[in-house]
């Protein structure tokens, strides 16, 4: 049975790779290439989902190695509860995205093959990343994933901003990989092989503190921890919308997966690891949502929310590590379960939101918030789906985001009670950060949903918007139903993460959570009450006059769409308390004189991570590196001396070692 569970995702990878190749061969025929590639992705996702569910249901624990060797490593794949859960996330979200992409790409005026091939390769590579049980094979899959996504990011490469985003992304992801090389090098040095089983055996002797820091930096660059997220808000919006959904929804979660996997090699965690991750999570979460509030581009706003949600996930992992460090499995499993479930939930609602943003772009030709408005009348399905995603991402009941945030809250509260006083500071940070993130996210999504879908159209494009095609709508409806299902039936959803959370939490079984049934019944009650009150109002208004008029404008009878509150004005007071840390640039040319001419006002919020943290670090690094130039003269003789000195040095070291040993 376990053998079958392992081979299904491998078959899915084969299908993805084969259809990617077929789509490449059919490259001249856009339609054929799109159909072959998308169908391949859909079939592979459906099959893979079956495999993931089978693996979760049978609690499959299996590892197999292929007969071929890789240089330094081997092709080794395996399944456990963590891998099975991530497989479930990948296949579910990629499947929905592939369905959406079928409709979305059809309208594009360029060669489609690169997007189709890239998408299938990206999904296949992610599957291999979570299946890999050998560091060399893992890094190989990781690299394919990064490069496939680079080609997806630069799909619309005729635009300058897209090419820039692609380059930034490529550099960022390779800096991350460099750190991962160092990490696995350190781990492998002690183990003598790069197989994960060996790394896990000797990981606690390989300098776990340094390894942990390297893992946080290396995987954090992919996941988008603040301030390593600098590439994310450029790269994710640049890709086609269904790819943004997969990148934000699952690809950055590969960083979370890698972190969890490597931490499990490093033996019992000290408490400061948990505290560090809580801090990283709190800063990423708050910085992410504050920057999201300041955005005027819908997709960029969503990309910053990925930083926020990665922050929430990291908070959960931090709480889990704290519980682990103090030997409290209840706190640990709650933190990990919340973090893992949020991985799935964020994938679902962020996928949904990016698809909604894609439909807006498709229907109006713009994603600039201030040019949109009133779309809910012309695009009702997209509006409803986006609303579901928006409520879910704010962590509000009765949707899925609430369930995972609730688990993290519960872990933090339990941590406050059960952990020693010095750990409570970190727990309190987690609580306050989650609450603040929740409040700010609500502000941001009321803004995004309200300005895009409600009120009156602010431009011609928005006035003549058209609803998306069947495939796109079907994908969004399915995503919305999934969000609602997890929110209404958390008892079932918790089974997806229970095994992995218990394993990470260092305990045999996941505690039964009777409270989840209460959440479920209250969510049902809430929906019933909403329905009941709607009927009540209908009955009340039945025999009474219901009129339509213009919006109350304080006596002004001719309101125009330009008089509506803008996204920037909406966000301004929310941002005010954070003004001290934000990079707010104002360019104003105010009306002056007796006969004022054209006036101009422009407010722009830059990313403080780049300007205040990364650029200074980079400058210092460059400055130090340039000092090494002293030894670089361009004279062959001198270089030969260096070689000689090094060789003699190594020889002496060897001899010394031999004598000493």
């Amino acid at each position, binding site marked *: 049975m376990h053998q079958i569970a392992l081979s299904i995702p491998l078959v899915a990878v084969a299908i993805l790779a084969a259809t990617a190749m077929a789509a490449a061969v059919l490259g001249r025929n856009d339609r054929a290439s799109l159909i072959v590639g998308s169908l391949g992705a859909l079939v592979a996702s459906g099959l893979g989902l079956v495999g993931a569910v089978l693996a979760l249901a049978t609690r499959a624990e299996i590892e197999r190695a292929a007969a071929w060797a890789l240089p330094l490593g081997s092709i080794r794949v395996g399944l456990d509860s963590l891998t099975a859960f991530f497989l479930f996330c990948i296949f579910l979200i990629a499947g929905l995205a592939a369905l959406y992409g079928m409709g979305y790409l059809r309208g594009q005026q360029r060669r489609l093959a690169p997007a189709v091939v890239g998408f299938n390769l990206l999904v296949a590579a992610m599957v291999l990343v979570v299946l890999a049980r050998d560091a060399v094979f893992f890094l190989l899959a990781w690299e394919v994933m990064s490069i496939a996504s680079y080609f997806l990011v630069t799909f619309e490469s005729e635009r300058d901003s897209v090419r820039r985003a692609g380059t930034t992304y490529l550099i960022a992801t390779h800096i991350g990989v460099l750190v991962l090389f160092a990490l696995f090098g350190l781990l492998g040095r002690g183990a003598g092989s790069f197989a994960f089983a060996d790394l896990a055996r000797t990981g606690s002797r390989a300098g776990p503190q340094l390894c942990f820091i390297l893992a946080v930096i290396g995987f954090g660059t992919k996941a988008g921890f603040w301030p390593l997220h600098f590439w994310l808000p450029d790269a994710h919006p640049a890709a086609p919308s269904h790819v943004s959904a997969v990148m934000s929804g699952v690809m950055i979660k590969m960083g979370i997966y890698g972190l969890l996997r490597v931490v499990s090699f490093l033996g019992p965690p000290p408490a400061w690891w948990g505290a560090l991750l809580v801090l990283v999570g709190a800063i990423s979460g708050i910085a992410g949502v504050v920057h999201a509030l300041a955005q005027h581009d819908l997709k960029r706003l969503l990309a910053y929310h990925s930083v926020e949600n990665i922050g929430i996930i990291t908070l959960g992992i931090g709480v889990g590590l704290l519980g682990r460090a103090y030997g409290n499995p209840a706190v640990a499993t709650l933190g990990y379960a919340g973090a893992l479930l949020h991985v799935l939930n964020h994938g679902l609602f962020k996928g949904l939101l990016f698809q909604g943003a894609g439909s807006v772009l498709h229907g109006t030709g713009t994603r600039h918030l201030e040019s949109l408005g009133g779309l809910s*009348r012309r695009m009702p399905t997209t509006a409803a789906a986006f609303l579901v995603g928006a409520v879910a991402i704010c962590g509000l009941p009765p949707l899925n985001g609430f369930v995972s945030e609730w688990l993290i809250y519960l872990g933090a509260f339990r941590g406050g009670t059960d952990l020693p006083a010095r750990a409570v500071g970190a727990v309190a940070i987690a609580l306050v950060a989650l609450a603040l993130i929740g409040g700010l996210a609500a502000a941001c999504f009321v803004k995004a949903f309200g300005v895009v879908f409600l009120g009156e159209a602010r431009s011609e494009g928005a006035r003549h918007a058209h609803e998306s095609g069947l495939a796109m709508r079907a994908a969004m409806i399915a995503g919305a139903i999934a969000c609602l299902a997890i929110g209404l039936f958390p008892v079932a959803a918790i089974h997806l993460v229970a095994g992995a959370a218990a394993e990470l939490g260092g305990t045999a079984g996941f505690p039964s959570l009777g409270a989840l049934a*209460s959440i479920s019944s209250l969510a049902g009650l809430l929906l019933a009450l909403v329905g009941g*009150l709607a009927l009540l109002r209908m009955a009340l208004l039945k025999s009474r006059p219901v009129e339509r008029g213009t919006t109350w404008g304080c006596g002004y009878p001719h309101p125009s769409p330009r008089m509506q509150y803008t996204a920037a004005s909406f966000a301004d007071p929310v941002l005010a308390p954070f003004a001290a840390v934000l990079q707010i640039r104002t360019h104003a040319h105010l009306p002056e004189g007796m006969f004022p001419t054209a006036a101009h006002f422009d407010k722009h919020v830059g990313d403080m991570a780049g300007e205040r943290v990364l650029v200074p670090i980079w400058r210092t690094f460059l400055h130090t590196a340039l000092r090494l130039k002293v030894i670089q003269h361009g004279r062959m003789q001198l270089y030969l001396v260096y070689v000689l000195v090094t060789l003699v040095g190594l020889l002496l070291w060897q001899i010394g070692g031999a004598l000493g040993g």
Partner: protein
Amino acid sequence: MADPGSIALHLGLLLLVPPLLPGLIAKTKAVASGRQGPPVLQPYRDIWKLLGKGAVYSQTTTWIFRAGPIVTLAAALCAGLLTPLVGPAAPLGFAGDVVLFAYLLALGRFFTMAAALDTGSSFEGMGASREATFSALAEPTLFLVLAILCIPAGSPSFAAAFTALPWQTWIAAHPPLIAATVALFVVLLAENSRIPVDDPSTHLELTMIHEVMVLDHSGPDYAFILYGGAIKLFLFASLLVHILVPVPAGLPGLPVFGAGVVAVAIVVGIVESITARLRLVRVPQFLIGASVVAMLGLLILVFRGTL
């Protein structure tokens, strides 16, 4: 809390008492300023009258506008089933209900703000923006208060928290609970749009927060909004009462609870009578101040190690 009697009592209180509170506050303010003021039961009459009226909808609005009041009221009612009224337990309370309580109220706020933006009015957008700002800043304070209450109790539920409160010692000197009371009172004022955060009786749209968001609602929709707002105020008042005094379960607790809720309403009325509304730029400082108070309370609680 399984017996039908106490459930009936809870539901009766939850459905019938809330509109009394805004009436009491208005009466207190009237008395304090030497006026006679509207009768205490006026909010009931207002709601009843509005339920019987027709409605006017703006041409700009969509179903979101109609959903706003309904979702807000439904969320408040659900939160009411989690909040203990008479006795420390609520009918549907569970381990972790405090989080659901806070997020249900947030859900209601989300839909109120969305409904405001649905009208396309710049005034309502302004109100929504302010509400978003202040509620985001009040949220951490609320969770710090919940942490002070729930961490010693061992479970994030109102029932555990209110059962575990140390009545004998706290009135004398219990800094964490004093901090929690002060902070929760500020949250009550902010969440229920009372002075000094918001002035519910102002007449200039530019200065309003909550009232301006619901300008375009009329008839039954507006009745739902008034009723939902009253329930929210009632729930916060109930939480304060439970922190301040032990409320026994069943009928013996009724006088204690009733007197407590009335007292909270009168205190809110007095605060409204003797303070002016803060300038809008000062409100964030007021709210952050409250969260600092709550944070201090939590620190004292944790590092004293006892409760």
